[in-house]
């Protein structure tokens, strides 16, 4: 086992953890620079593969970092990279959670929370649009996106139904057109 590599993995990803405001997608350029250029752990092409695979899997997008650890150093690499990207930001969130809990009766904290709600709403809608931009190559894909959005808005049913339908429709469209 390569201890130097593991230490480097831990250092690179724990620093990225603390600057990744907006999640791992926001730090994608910096992650690529560290992994491909600074440390030469991967080629550009294999980094692109890791990105695609981790976005096809369910779960938080930081599993991309886990997969990088896995490819470089197996199970130990996966654990080190995952803990490094999670621990610093989670500890900070924990401290903030306690502070907000203690002061949640304070009118200023209540105002801050009220102010965050509309910003969070706008950012969720925005990430839907940028995902659409990345995924949609034709009219059928656009229709799938819009119909899925309609399903979610009008129904409390499990959205997995809509996702499965979208997948089948696109495979059928590929087969028959």
């Amino acid at each position, binding site marked *: 086992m390569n201890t130097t590599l593991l230490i480097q993995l831990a250092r690179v990803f724990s620093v990225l953890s*603390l600057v*990744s*405001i907006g*999640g*791992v997608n926001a730090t994608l350029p910096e992650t690529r620079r560290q992994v491909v250029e600074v440390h030469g752990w991967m080629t550009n092409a294999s980094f692109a593969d890791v990105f695609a695979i981790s976005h*096809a*899997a*369910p*779960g*938080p*997008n930081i599993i991309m970092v886990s997969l990088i650890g*896995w*490819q470089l150093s197996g199970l130990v690499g*996966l654990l080190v990279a*995952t803990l490094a990207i*999670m621990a*610093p*930001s*989670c500890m900070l*969130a*924990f401290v*903030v*959670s*306690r502070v907000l*809990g*203690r002061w949640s009766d304070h009118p200023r904290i209540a*105002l*801050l929370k009220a*102010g*965050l*709600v*509309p*910003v*969070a*709403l*706008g950012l*969720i*809608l*925005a*990430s*839907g*649009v*940028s*995902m*659409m931009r990345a*995924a*949609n*190559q034709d009219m059928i894909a656009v229709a799938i*996106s*819009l119909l899925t*959005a309609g399903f*979610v*808005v009008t129904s409390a049913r499990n*959205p*997995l139904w809509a*996702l499965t339908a979208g*997948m*089948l429709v*696109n495979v059928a469209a*590929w087969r028959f057109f």
Partner: protein
Amino acid sequence: MDGHTGGLQRGAGGQVVSKSDLFFGFLKIGMLGFGGIAPWARHVIIEERRWLTEKEFAAILGVGQILPGPNTMNAAVMIGDRFQGVAGVLLCLLGQMLVPLFIVTALGAIYGRYANIPWVSAAVVGAAAGAAGLVMGTGLKMARKIKPAPLAILVTVAAFFAEGIMEWPLVPVVLVLVPLSVIAAAMERRV
């Protein structure tokens, strides 16, 4: 408020949210979480189990958004702490990561072999398009249920425009919009 000790708050329906509720709830969220976790977190936490109200969930996501790290991971920390303290935090995080870690390593192992089959890539594109719709639908549904005041709608539209249309860097956008939004919230309250 007993929030300062962390843990042991009641759910939105007045129920106790136990450690195993948290673990299995987040296991489900992680397992279903195709195309991002937030829509699934909302579905399970609000519609299925009624742990939080729509507003509480949006506020937690909002705090999660301005901290480093994925907003849903920060939300998992805050939700775990709210109901079961430190043990709740660890259980939420473990639950959320467990299944995705298995799936991503399995995908990594078989990817090279199947990526070039056309129906596989058609299925992946279909799922990705659906996931985009899922995220948008979730945002619209939250907006409909929260019924933001007029100034708050303006902030939502501004955030959407800055990130979704212009794709400006997130940090300055948040630094400008959050203070404006707080001022707007203060004004709405006074009227």
